[in-house]
C-alpha cells in the first residue's frame, strides 16, 4: 500500500540551511548534507529545500548544495525558490534534484509549467500554490512568498497548473502558515477533490493531530513541515508511530545499518 509522506522543509540561503530545522545533535546545524543525512536516518520520506538566496550572484550556490546533498542522501529531493525558466529547471535536475518546485514564475508565465513537464516529465514538476482565504470556500493566489495578491482563484489555478502538466501540488495556506494551529483543512479538501495529482499540505503543523487531519480530512498525500521539527518538539519516528497507530499508512523507520553514524 502506498504510504503517506512526511517531508521536512529547509530554507536555504547561500547554500546553507537557515531555518526549519532541529538544531539538536549536529556539529554544524547549517550543513545541508549533514541535515539531510540525519533526517534520512530518522525516516523522512523526502526532503524539500527552498532557496531564499536574495542575491542573484549567489544563486549558483544552490546547485552546489544540491550536488553535495544528492551525492550522499538517497531519498527524493525537491528544490524550489527562484525557478524562472526551463534552463533553471534543467540545472536543478542535473545537479541532482528529483523535483523542482515553481511558484511566482509559474503564475506570471504558466507556460513554464508546460515547458518543464514536456522537457523533463510531469513527475518532476511541482507547482507551489500559496493562497489566502477571502470568503468561505474561496481562496486567492498570492506570489512572492505571500506578499503579492494576484486576484486569481486558488482552485482554478490548481486545476490549470495540473492541466498544464504539474505532477504534484504543494499547497500552502498563508492564513495558517507559521501559526502551528493546524493546516487549512477545507482548502486541502477542496484542492484534493479538484485535482488527480498528489497534494502536499503545507502551513500550520504544530501537533501530530494536525498531520493526521491533513491526511484524513484533507486528503493530502504528503505533509510538509518545518516548525514542528524546530526545537526538536516532535521527531519523525514519533510522528510516524502516532499516525500509523491511527491507521494512516506510514513507511516504517528503518533501523540504521551497522556502521552508520
Amino acid at each position, binding site marked *: *500500500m*502506498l*504510504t*503517506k*509522506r512526511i517531508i521536512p522543509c529547509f530554507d536555504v540561503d547561500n547554500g546553507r540551511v537557515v531555518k526549519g530545522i532541529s538544531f539538536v545533535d549536529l556539529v554544524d546545524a547549517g550543513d545541508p548534507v549533514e541535515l539531510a543525512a540525519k533526517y*534520512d536516518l530518522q525516516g523522512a*520520506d523526502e526532503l524539500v529545500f527552498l532557496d531564499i538566496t536574495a542575491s542573484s550572484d549567489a544563486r549558483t550556490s544552490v546547485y552546489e548544495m544540491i*550536488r553535495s546533498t*544528492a*551525492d*550522499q542522501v*538517497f*531519498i*527524493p529531493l525537491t528544490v524550489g525558490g527562484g525557478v524562472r525558466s526551463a534552463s533553471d529547471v534543467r540545472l536543478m*535536475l*542535473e*545537479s*541532482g534534484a*528529483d523535483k523542482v518546485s515553481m511558484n511566482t514564475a509559474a503564475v506570471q508565465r504558466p507556460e513554464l509549467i508546460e515547458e518543464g513537464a514536456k522537457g*523533463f*516529465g*510531469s*513527475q*518532476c514538476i511541482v507547482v507551489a500554490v500559496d493562497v489566502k482565504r477571502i470568503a468561505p470556500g474561496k481562496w486567492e493566489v498570492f506570489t512572492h512568498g505571500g506578499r503579492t495578491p494576484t486576484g486569481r482563484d486558488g482552485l482554478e489555478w490548481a486545476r490549470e497548473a495540473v492541466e498544464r502538466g504539474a*505532477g*504534484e501540488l504543494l499547497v500552502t495556506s498563508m492564513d495558517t502558515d507559521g501559526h502551528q494551529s493546524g493546516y487549512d483543512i477545507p482548502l486541502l479538501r477542496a484542492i484534493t477533490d479538484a485535482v*488527480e*495529482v*498528489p497534494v502536499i499540505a503545507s502551513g500550520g503543523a504544530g501537533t501530530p493531530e494536525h498531520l493526521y487531519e491533513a491526511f484524513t480530512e484533507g486528503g493530502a*498525500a*504528503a505533509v510538509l513541515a518545518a516548525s514542528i521539527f524546530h526545537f526538536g518538539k516532535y521527531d519523525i519516528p514519533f510522528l510516524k508511530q502516532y499516525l500509523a497507530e491511527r491507521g494512516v499508512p506510514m*513507511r*516504517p523507520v*528503518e533501523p540504521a*545499518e551497522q556502521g552508520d553514524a
Partner: protein
Amino acid sequence: MDVVIVDYGAGNLRSVARAVAHAGVEPRVTAIAAEVERARALIVPGVGAAEDTMANLRAAGLDGPIRDYIASGRPFLGVCMGMQALFDLSEEGGEHPCLGVLGGRIVRFPYGMTVPHMGWNTVTLRDEHPVFEGIPQGSYFYFVHSYHPRPSEDATVLGETEYEGVVFPSVVGRENVVATQFHPEKSGRWGLRLYENFLRLARERGSIAPAHTAAT
C-alpha cells in the same frame, strides 16, 4: 569502466551514478554505442516520457547495441523508464514501439486514480531473486510513474505492487535482465542494497572485476 550507465538525455543519471558508486564501483556514464557494446554490466535508468526516451535512444544509435548487449547474456538492470522501454510497446501519448526485449505493453493507471503513483510502496516478490538478496519481503521503495507494464508472459513478472486496488508488476525480467518500476537510487538503504546485489551478481558472473575500494 566496467559498469556502464546509458545516457540518452534523461534526467536523474547523476543519482543513479552516485548510488552505483556508493555500492562499490565507479560507473561510466555514456551515450556512445561502442561503450555500451563493451559493457560488463549495463544500467538503463530514466524518467520522462516513452516517446522521447525511444526517440533519444534511436537518435543516439543506442537501441540496437542495448538489444545486442541483452542478447549476449551479460547482466542488465533497467530502472523506471529504462524498464518500460524493454517492452514491445508503450501507450504513453499514443502507441510507441519500444525495444521489444520483453513481451507486452506499457499502460496507464485507470482514470479517476491519483496519478502519478508517487511515494513509498511495498514490493512483493514472487520468488527469491539474487538482486533482492538480503532485502526483506515487503520492503518499501520509492515510486513515481503514471504508466506500468502489462507483460504478455506471466513468467516475466518477478514482483508486484498494489496501488489503490490495482496490482501491477513492479519488478520484471528474465535470465540476465532485471528491471524495476521504482527508483532504487531514491529508495534509501534497500535501494542501495539492490545496486550492491546487482554489482555482486555481475562480479560473480565474471563480468566485472572485484571491488577494489568500498564506497564511503
